[in-house]
């Protein structure tokens, strides 16, 4: 079996393909006869000046194109429900992180088993570019499910994990959640996708996915100081 690149992106991609096939088929079923009628039944003086005015409707046909689409959409919705359950249910062995959005950056907290914060990563606003210092990247282990608890300090933001094709709003006063798992180490985009003002399009982060051993070492490391230094440095050029 081919290795899955990321959850829940694989299920999302499958759902998109299912929809696309259904949509293209319906499109062809409607558009081809439609175009054909437009070509064929043209007004021709002396020959075809009036349409068939006997037919005002056809109950059989109308019932057919009510019932069949109803069945199709109910099947699609139920399929989507099944996928949705998987997308929303984090596996029990998930690692939990807390991410707090603010105008226009993020604060990510790593927790120990008791739920105490053992490490923080602050990603600050970069109003001009899309590069990020090493110590502002959100680091997670590859091949491990991550459950992110989300909230916001000010306005509503959202947390979009691009490789996992999943997002959820960060609402002040609430804790929302999503989960994802990336199996291939690398750097990926995170964006805010709920409109939050002037800095909205620069509210981004990098998700750095590393092998589990490297992650454990990183978690024990000491970069929170560097993170603070960096914040001061950034503060100057804002």
């Amino acid at each position: 079996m081919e290795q899955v690149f990321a959850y829940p992106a694989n299920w999302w991609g499958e759902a998109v393909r299912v929809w696309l096939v259904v949509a293209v088929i319906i499109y062809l079923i409607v558009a081809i006869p439609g175009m054909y009628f437009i070509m064929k039944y043209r007004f021709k003086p002396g020959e075809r000046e009036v349409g068939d005015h006997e037919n005002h409707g056809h109950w059989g046909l109308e019932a057919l194109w009510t019932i069949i689409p109803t069945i199709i959409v109910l099947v699609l919705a139920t399929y989507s429900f099944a996928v949705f359950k998987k997308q929303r249910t984090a596996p029990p062995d998930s690692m939990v992180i807390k991410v707090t959005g603010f105008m226009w950056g993020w604060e990510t907290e790593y927790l120990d088993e008791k739920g105490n914060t053992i490490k923080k990563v602050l990603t600050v606003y970069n109003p001009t570019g899309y590069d990020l210092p090493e110590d502002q990247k959100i680091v997670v282990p590859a091949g491990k499910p991550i459950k992110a608890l989300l909230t916001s300090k000010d306005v509503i933001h959202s947390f979009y994990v691009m490789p996992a094709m999943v997002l959820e709003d960060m609402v002040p006063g609430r804790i929302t959640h999503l989960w994802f798992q990336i199996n291939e180490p690398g750097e990926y985009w995170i964006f805010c996708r709920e409109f939050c003002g002037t800095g909205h399009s620069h509210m981004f982060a990098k998700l750095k996915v590393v092998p589990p051993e490297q992650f454990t070492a990183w978690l024990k490391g000491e970069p929170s100081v560097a993170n603070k230094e960096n914040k001061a440095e950034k503060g100057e050029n804002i």
Partner: protein
Amino acid sequence: MREAISVPYLKAGLKEWIFTTDHKKIGILYLTTTYIFFLVAGLFGLVIRFEQNSPGYQIVPPDFYNYLLTGHGAVLLLWWGIASHIGGLGNFLLPLMIGAKDVAFPRLNALSWWAFFGASVLVLLTLIPGNHIKMMWTGYPPYAGNPDAGVTALYVFIIHLIGVSSIATAVNFITTYIKMRAPGITFWNTNMFVHALIAANVIQLVGVPSIAGAVTMLLLDTYLGTNFYNPAKGGDPLIYQNVFWFYSHPVVYVMILPIFGMFSEIVSTFSRKPLFGYTSMIFAIWCITFLSFIVWIHHMFVSGVPDWARVLMSYTTILIAVPTGIKIFNWMGTLYKGAIILRVPMLYALGGIFMFLIGGLTGIPNAMVAIDLGISDSLFIVGHFHYVLGMALTFGIFGGITYWFPKMTGRMYPENIGKLSFWLIFAGANIFYFFQMIAGILGNPRRYPDYPPIPEWVTLHHIQTIGALILGVGILVYTVGLIKGLTSGEEASDNPWESQSLEWRLPSPAPVDNFGDEPPKVEPDYHPYKYGAPPAF
């Protein structure tokens, strides 16, 4: 012949325009105002488009971009999407189609117009730099109350004034339909446009108070320190979203139902054939109207509401595809064995129907909650509603204007210019909006003036810009056609399309008192789509 409303309209004095309570003049006032606003907001759209063309801030700073996008969204939805065909074409046509002398409450109608005019003035005031509103047309708190979002009060008062206008119009139109029909006009031989107009106004009547409440609480929170949406004091920002979308989802049917009505009028006339499935069309309209009020959570699939609510409204939302499908199939049934004449209004109507087909099919993944978790707030959704609004709706209005142009002005819309504009707009809009959707599938968030230089995104943005340019030229050509038609268009006969519908029995342009003091004689077997005899053109 009785005195015509004014040929051309320019002959009516300023005083007459200001104090008029004539539904036709008010209709024209709405239509011209909304058309100008459409052009300006379209221009905003082009600036937004150029800004997104390449990564980096290109031509406008992000806060000004946010103003442009707020203006683009709000004006195109409220002015173009609602007022142009309800206040504009609706005002003009409703009394004519049911054989009435005017609407039920002509002075209330004038009030609607002036409230709308007030809102238009407020929108113009936001052009002043200190007055920008930047909270997007959705105005979500807490952001909408933040200084970064601009002048909250202006946003709220614009919605209030539009709301006053909408409620007054809804009361007026519904009463007019119930009370003022000429003898012989019944539920079963009413034009589809009128059926749709009434359904749309029922939605307005039920829904507008809801959004008015939402923004009023926003106003109180922002200026008087109440805490409806403030989580620190026990409020909840999601209240706003619920109350806002309870109206603002149904409002998309306020926008699109009358467009469907126009498609039906035009397709039947130019197929020289009765509308297929008239009864199931009416059934579909009222099904949509009812369902539209129980689907609003699909705008909040990732907002943090409970999972069960998302699944429930995923089902109700996807069910709306059924009545909309019925309408599309019925139009195809009307084309079948017709005698199709591809004049400009018909081109626009057919284009609109085919584009609505794509708009509808790309709406399904937004209803499927599993897919929406990945595409919510991306450019996919923007591309989808541009298919519905930028194409189906705009084609409907453009087609409707060219179709009833003779009745409004006494002249014909120039055929060649109309055809050229159609093909330009059709090509440009498809290039633009199709690739907007693809960019969204690839993850590009919406409302982003800047984005990282991801190669696929950049290519897609370049293609979109080319499409938008062609689209812009098309709209310009259509506008030239309007001016040309008004000033030097061919003189129109009373019923140039040989329509069976009541409004075409009047002279072109329609006279001041419509059918005169006596209601028109409507034969017992009258039906607006009773086609049988070949047309003479």
